[in-house]
């Protein structure tokens, strides 16, 4: 297979990376999915979790939160609200932050702005932890 995928990862503030790779795995809203060259045109919303990509057996990952994925002509465009590289994640710090956010989430009333903010925080830290642990 000569075909390769082009992965573009972009956040609202800046483009994060653009690489060629063999396979991408992303956390869609309806479960994780994998992409290989020749994938059908596909548009989905992104959940939070690890975004993996494989390049000749080498595996690299970013923790992403929310956004969209578009696949078209072997180009995978990931527009994520946030993206953090796996090596920049400190598991202990994330674990503490996750606990903290969970605790606060239980304290605030549902439906409030704070509740949404805290649940976003929980998702962010959970996604980062999941990325490190894989």
């Amino acid at each position, binding site marked *: 297979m000569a075909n390769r995928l082009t992965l573009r990862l972009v956040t609202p503030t800046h483009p994060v990376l653009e690489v060629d790779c063999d396979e991408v795995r992303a956390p869609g809203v309806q479960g994780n999915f994998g992409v290989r060259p020749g994938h059908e045109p596909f548009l989905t919303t992104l959940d939070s979790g690890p975004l993996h990509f494989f390049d000749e057996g080498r595996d690299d990952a970013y923790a992403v939160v929310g956004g969209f994925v578009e696949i*078209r002509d072997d180009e995978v465009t990931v527009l994520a609200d946030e993206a953090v590289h796996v090596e920049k994640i400190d598991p202990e710090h994330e674990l503490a932050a996750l606990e903290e956010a969970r605790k606060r989430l239980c304290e605030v009333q549902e439906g409030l702005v704070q509740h949404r903010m805290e649940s976003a925080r929980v998702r962010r830290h959970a996604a980062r932890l999941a990325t490190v642990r894989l």
Partner: protein
Amino acid sequence: MANLKDIRKRISSVRNTQQITKAMKMVAAAKMRRAQDAAIRARPYAEGIERMLAEVMARSIDADASPIHPLLETRRPVRHVKLLVMTSDRGLCGGFNSNILRRAGRFLYENEEVYENITVATAGRKGRDYFRRRPTVKQGTHHAGVFEELRYEKAERISEDLRRRYLSPEHDLDAVFILYNHFVSAVTQNVTLRQLLPVEPPSEQRPERPGKPAAVDFRYEPDQAAVLDALLPTYLTTQIWRALMESLASEHAARMTAMDSATRNAGDMIDSLTLLANRTRQAAITTELVEIVAGAEAL
């Protein structure tokens, strides 16, 4: 005849001012460059959202079965309108704020009869202060501190606030416009008025992918309506985000230009004052000489 000492004092005070304006100019130039960079780096995301939205919309228009999304639907009649005005927090930036506010005034004047109710929301302290002094204008939310540290979350918050009111069952908001300075270059900024809500879909006629069909049959997950539902708010946010960044870059550009001409004016003033000082000094010396000669002759 002006006293030589007074003139010297004035020269040094003008020189002080010149140093300040020069420093401000340099700070504004650095900030402008940073704001410009940020605006450029944010472009791929906004373009991506725009492209995806265009793709989703291209299909849903064909399928007449799908109902129009509430964020897209134009309400008739449009009665309650909001104008979001972006100014700066600080002054000393030339015509930056007055251009925007004059345009806002024109908008209010022109649409007074058209819409039942126009509310002005502001981002940036100067705009808030201006409309506070005008009690006839109905003031809405002031988004405080947006420009102090510009982050995407701030655009998200504004977008969320607008959406909530727009979609509220009371129907007290039917359309939203945004007024900001569009950054063209360091010397040119254009006052721009755009409609935010109902969302005007991006036009798909872009020659960005030549040779490929414009409409591809995408598979959507969970489904097309859900993707559209998620895309529209994000699209709104990116539009606000973009306007915020344009406005910030424009503000610094306007300040840079204003401070540059202030520095130059101070330079001109120093030159003419120096000339005056020299002339005064020469006159004093001449008078003194004349007195000495006259005194010697009298002996």
